[in-house]
């Protein structure tokens, strides 16, 4: 029961999406989420304790909580970053793959979803973050790589099946997936990176999620 909002899905064009190393995936927090600075000690502890299960090298924590709709608080790694992201002024957990991942784009996307879910699960159970839960009905996927994934119809069309496949592989084959292209708000503003909003139906709840 998948619906694609984009008609180009059937007319797949060749893009070099597979060569895009960077991919980002955001899970949105439900209302009542804590302020970003609360994440600073948590991310520092992930570095010192290894309390997040991951093979990635974790390096440092960067605090941009003073920037409205900014990247919030980031846990900087070598191959990937995790952040408590504030874009759209909607807090959430953003996993950002930067480099150092063997495998194709689909595998990168699947990994991003798994990593984001794992981190969100750990955060949602952290007693220092009361009120933090994640919504299992919505995702944001972004590919900040204008060389291999320019923000155009062809790239979007190529992205959609990857998203559907990755979501089903991770969350279950019968999850409903609706993908729409994040539209440009204003005609006079240059376009951001290729991005897709993903609406899920019947996805298993992320720890404490109210889906």
């Amino acid at each position: 029961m998948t619906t694609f909002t984009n008609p180009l899905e059937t007319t797949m064009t060749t893009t070099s999406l597979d060569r895009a190393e960077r991919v980002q995936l955001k899970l949105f927090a439900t209302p009542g989420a804590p302020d970003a600075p609360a994440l600073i000690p948590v991310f520092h502890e992930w570095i010192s304790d290894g309390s997040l299960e991951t093979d990635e090298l974790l390096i440092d924590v960067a605090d941009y909580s003073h920037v409205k709709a900014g990247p919030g608080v980031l846990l900087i790694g070598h191959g990937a970053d995790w952040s408590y992201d504030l874009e759209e002024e909607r807090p959430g957990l953003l996993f950002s793959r930067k480099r150092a991942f063997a495998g194709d784009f689909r595998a990168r996307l699947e990994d991003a979803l798994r990593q984001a879910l794992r981190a969100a699960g750990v955060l949602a159970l952290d007693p220092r973050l009361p009120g933090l839960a994640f919504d299992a009905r919505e995702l944001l996927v972004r590919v900040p790589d204008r060389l291999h994934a320019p923000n155009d119809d062809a790239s979007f069309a190529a992205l959609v099946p990857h998203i559907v496949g990755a979501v089903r592989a991770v969350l279950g084959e019968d999850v409903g997936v609706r993908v729409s292209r994040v539209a440009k708000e204003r005609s006079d503003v240059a376009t951001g990176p290729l991005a897709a909003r993903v609406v899920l139906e019947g996805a298993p709840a992320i720890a404490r999620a109210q889906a």
Partner: protein
Amino acid sequence: MSAGSWKERLGDAVPETLAQEIDVFEEQIARKKSGRMDEKLFAETRLRRGAYGQRYDNGLRNDGRGQRRLAFPSDATKGVDTVFDAPGMQRIKNPYGLVTADQMEVMAECAEEYADRILHVTTRQDIQLHFVHVEDTPDMHRRLASGGSTTREACGNSVRNITACVYAGVCSSQSFDVTPYAEAAKEFLLGHPDVQDFGRKFKIAFSGCHDEPCGLVTFHDLGAVAKVREVDGAWKRGFELVVGGGLGAVPVEAKVLTEFCPEEELLPLTQAVCRVFARLGEKQSRARARIKFLVQKTGIEEFRRLVAEERALLRPDPRWTAYLENLSGQDVAGVRPAGPLPEDVSPDFARWAATNLRPQAQEGYFAATVTCPLGDFTADQARGFAALMRRYTGDKSCRLAVDQNVVFRWLSGADAPAFYARLQELGVADHGAGTLLEPTSCPGTDTCKLGIASSRGLTGELRRRLRVLDDAIDPDVKKLRIKASGCFNSCSQHHVADLGFMGVARNVGGRKVPHFNVVLGGQWTQNAGSYGQVVGAVPSKNVPDAVKVITDAYLAEREDEESFQAFVRRVGKGHVKKLLRPLMKPPSYEESPDHYRDWRDPREFGIGDLGVGECAGEVVPWVEYGLQTAEQELDAAQAHDEAGRFADASRAAFGSMITAARALLEHLEVQVRKDPEDVVEKFRTHLHETKLFHDPFAKGKFATYLLAMRASGRFEADAAELAHRNLDEANLFLEAAHAAYARLTAAAIAAGKRPSEVAARDLGSPEAPAPSPAE
């Protein structure tokens, strides 16, 4: 189908010479990675391309429990002690702060794809991107070059970004628009053979007038202040040139090289100054390599003579004057019709306009300052800025300001409310630009390798608290400016803030505590006319309270219309220090562990280096007592100075250094008498020559203050200027003594030795390693 690489995709859009340089750089990166290129050579090349190192890039990080090695995938390096894979910083040069709409968009894309989506405005009108991988830099440089930006010579021993007032061309107090002159100087000097052989960086600033703050020329290596003079009945443009200023450990005001340099002499004289600096400037000791040391050494008279001699030998160059044929600035007119501000505006707009809109010299146009908290804005906001430029102010109308904001010039009054509404949508509509509400900060321990305390953590916190108070703050206090630097290098320019803060570490009961030295009453006006006075160190966590104590005292004790600078001068440091004294001593660890951590950083400050050891006792060890005594002697010296007793001030300053040196010597169980001769000799053999007193970055610099003061007899100086220098040096020497004590203690504990058994090799301070060649 997309092209396979940025190089192919951009093709001719990258200017040919830059394209070639970037290709070479890319090739060098590959060679470095496989170990086929010299370490230092590569580091210098990398820096010249604006690709800086960043904290922890030596592969070590204290995670709060101890020093850990960061297991980067490859063992390759990109400079001495700099891991190849470690994230770095990219600096993008914006001459006189100009950013076009296209450049804004390209920088946004780079921030998004290669960094953390943040564009950071620096105190020298540059943009920085952080957490960048060195292998991404060639493509990033290509993309930036295609948009007309360069990263060339943004770092390294070269002519850095040429800065100028953000209001150049639109300001009502300027003599004339300095923009075309700054542009010409940049074009002339970039890659010029005469500026390739410097021992250190060289910073140039232009100012359109003498009295306004924007140009800040007095602390630059070379400063040019626009002047108009009547010559043979005609008005002639020219510049007052000043040389040899600088901030850093000991701030130095630039000296006048010439009162009036006619416009056609601007470039040849600049070239002559550069040649003298390249020829005679210090090359071995980085700590003394800035031009200010050369000017101090030769004296300004001799320096003037050398420059005149060099000027006479120069072969004429048509570029010296060619640009004078067409002196139009970059954005010399509005793209929308001028108009007055509407009468009927929202209270929010009115409040924003009061601090963030400034009328231009051109009737009906305004310069709008967009406040970027701590200098940061996002890639989305950058794209919004580009659109605003195209729609309202023109695509060359943006300039980055030294107080880390973005200024849009040529905003028609009639468009201002709509412009403001769009800023609200973008989340950058905060009022309070240039006030207490918007402190300036250097990167500090967030990303800088030399950072001691978290200047961004502090300013972020101050900003948050002050914005909550907002209307409750007295308007005369709100006018004041705060700047914080993470260490003595002073990158935030705190010497010229009303309330300046400089990060230092102090040892308390065997633990390190982050502190900020309070520097008060610096002058922002008259192109940074005078520097602030160091009052003393306050634990980081007490700084917000210190701000309150100081500003309350100003309101309660000022006379009539007295400015903050005049107030500080009148009451003196001693008085302010007395007020701050209750805040100067941190509570014990047991009472408040929070004081032993920095702002927005839960890690115990430096505990990985220190451990919890036998020093954590109740009793103040003798050495700490000695260092405190030295502080008191320095206070007394300060009091002498304020009372105009300069000889007493010099003697007492020297005495405080002797006391501190003796305390350290006794800590090392060295037998030492009380007389200065013996202390200086023993200091030389046991602390200086052994390198135990060496600062990880400045090396023997602070030790030589003591040795030179003794050798030159300057400790008896009765001239005001020398006494001030003695005071400044004593201050830094004491600071260094505290730091040396902290390092010795840490090393002794770590090695399980007595302090007297510690050797220089046991010290090391991995979080603040010596920077690579040109950083």
